[in-house]
């Protein structure tokens, strides 16, 4: 895409081999020698012109320096899930989700025409305890037909695949919450890729009968935004705003267990990942079963999710980000601020 300035030069250069007289060959050789000499000079003799500045890059991407949208508590409703309730089979857990089109500012000054549940991307966290009766009233106030497809065990006619909800219509999904674990919900109208990358998805926690140990609980939904429609994400975020937790680090206590419900709803890219700096954590895939992995990096395919438990050893700013450097530098990076 670089502008071509010396057009004749380029044009004629293409024809040069045809007329390569001995003189030309000699001159070309001379030119090459000069170039090689110049290049050798760079490495040893002088400091590259590119390095005159100070420290740059991620070191500067913290606090007010990080380019993120909004105020410090804007995403609290998405980050902090509603509390877990004790096991009581048959209890009704009622939620209302409304599909609305919304123009969201995902990075400073960058607006994305999103399709949302309740006006945010990701949508609200839905939480129930195993065997609660989940009743989700869904109204479509958007401009396209949508559904809600929950991951989990439920009747086939509550799956959000066949019951398309047209704009202006509504449908109530009702089923017992199972199995215990950390799941997702998302729109399953076609074209699927479009309906997901536009923002119709969210986190879905089903607490086990035996409650998990008390902890500071956080929800992190990894996603991306393709703002120019070329099938590649321009921005990557957690909970919908690039670099948000770099600007506003998540404050946690060293003495308290931290539990992160981590899900990957990134479209276009096969995998996303979470890497914690300066500490390790336990990872339970899908939030089910007894298998825990001890690591500092987990990888999730599209739609995969799991539960992380962290007991911080030290205090201070602990970075977390996708270990795909590209995603990290396009917004998927933040900090835990660990305090005593």
């Amino acid at each position, binding site marked *: 895409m670089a502008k071509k300035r010396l057009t*004749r*030069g380029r044009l004629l250069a293409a024809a040069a081999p045809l007329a390569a007289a001995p003189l030309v060959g000699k001159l070309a050789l001379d030119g090459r020698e000069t170039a090689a000499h110049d290049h050798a000079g760079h490495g040893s003799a002088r400091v590259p012109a590119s390095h005159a500045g100070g420290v740059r890059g991620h070191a500067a991407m913290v606090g007010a320096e990080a380019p993120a949208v909004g105020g410090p508590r804007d995403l609290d409703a998405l980050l902090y899930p509603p509390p877990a309730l004790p096991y009581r089979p048959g209890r009704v857990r009622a939620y209302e989700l409304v599909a609305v089109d919304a123009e969201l500012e995902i990075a400073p000054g*960058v607006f994305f025409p999103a399709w949302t549940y309740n006006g945010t991307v990701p949508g609200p966290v839905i939480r129930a305890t195993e065997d609660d009766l989940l009743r989700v009233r869904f109204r479509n106030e958007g401009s396209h037909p949508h559904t809600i497809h929950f991951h989990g065990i439920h009747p086939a006619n509550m799956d959000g695949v066949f019951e398309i909800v047209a704009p202006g219509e509504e449908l109530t999904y009702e089923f017992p919450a199972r199995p215990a674990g950390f799941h997702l919900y998302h729109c399953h109208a076609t074209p699927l890729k479009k309906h997901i990358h536009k923002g119709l998805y969210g986190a879905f926690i089903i607490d086990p009968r035996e409650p998990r140990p008390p902890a500071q609980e956080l929800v992190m939904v990894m996603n991306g935004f393709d*703002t120019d429609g070329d099938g590649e994400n*321009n921005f990557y975020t957690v909970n919908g705003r690039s670099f948000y937790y770099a600007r506003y680090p998540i404050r946690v206590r060293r003495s308290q267990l931290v539990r992160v419900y981590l899900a990957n709803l990134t479209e276009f890219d096969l995998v996303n990942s979470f890497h914690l700096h300066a500490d390790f954590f336990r990872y339970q895939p899908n939030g089910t079963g007894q298998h825990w992995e001890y690591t500092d990096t987990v990888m999730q395919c599209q739609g995969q999710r799991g539960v992380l438990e962290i007991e911080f050893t030290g205090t201070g700013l602990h970075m977390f980000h996708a270990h795909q450097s590209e995603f990290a530098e396009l917004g998927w990076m933040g900090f835990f601020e660990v305090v005593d």
Partner: protein
Amino acid sequence: MEARTASLGSQLGWRLWALVPVLALALAVGAVVTGGSRLVDLVGTNPPPADEFDIRRVEFRPGELRIVVRNPQRDDLTIANVNVDDAIVPFTVEGSATLGRLRSATIVVPFDWVEGDPISVGVTSSTGIQTVEEIPAAVATPEPSARGFLGYALIGGLVGILPVALGLLWLPALRRASAAWLSGFMAFTAGLLVFLGLDALSEAFEQQAALPPGLGGSGLVLLGVALSFLGMTALAGRLGGGGTAAGVALALLVSIGIGVHNFGEGLAIGASFAVGELQLGTFLIVGFMVHNVTEGLGIAAPVARSRVTLLALAGLVLVAGAPTILGAWLGGYTSSDVLAALFFGLAAGAAFQVVVEVGRYVAHNAPGGLRSPHAIVGFLAGIAVMYATGILAG
């Protein structure tokens, strides 16, 4: 007296009548404007604006990138986000981040770029559309300095003045040549100028094609060609005293035609080098020297039969060659793509006009006129030699 008043009245009258279409047009325009989008709504919906920037220049400064962007579209465009190599980077904008039509701004990015590496720069509008410029190799942008100024002057002198002066050394040989051979060399000059004119014209169109549509299409180039062609015609008329320009007058016209072209050549060299697209090696400089030496021959041919002082010859050399230096300075330290397109149009027009003058001279003075074998072969040889030596400058 009465007749004179009447004629004054009728003179005023036709001018007033000429205003009628203008006023009618103003009314029609007013009606369309106040109608807003209603007219378009009849046939459909306008597509959204492209929201792409025109990235005009990326400068590599110590620890810093400077990106000059322009809004090429009708609607406003806001700089919201900047990427370097697919990573979001902090940036500041010199001037307003929201650009009106054809407005430019400079984005400053603190960045440790790697010399010689390819690098991409992306500017994202508030609607999320990203415009990416791929730069094949990051090279420090030269800043104006006495050293650099002198350097460009030396390079310009080497590729512009020196070869023209060397080419003039053919003069003694030409003086001894027969009339037929001399007319061949004159035709050679015409061929050379046609080559330069066409070269400038294609460069002008190339420059113009890279401009946003709002900055005038091929009309800009045509304006340049017409302006210089007519200007040179007037000059030729004055120098030739109403008849056919010959001798020093014709040589001066040839020099001007070549000089305007060489200004463009200097401009291209300076600009390409400044943005890291050109390896200004020994090979290229020598190539331009060989290429331009024939220009000296072109200036020598018209004065082969006239008395001419050394001072006049030096003047001719400067007129033809010195503009290369000016061009290199301008191209190396400034960037104006609009002027460049206009300028190469001017160069083409000047060259073509001088072809007309030389052709006229050959037609009048050559034994056998334009149809003589010497003239035909000379003309073709002029083009062929310029083409062949041009390969060296590629």
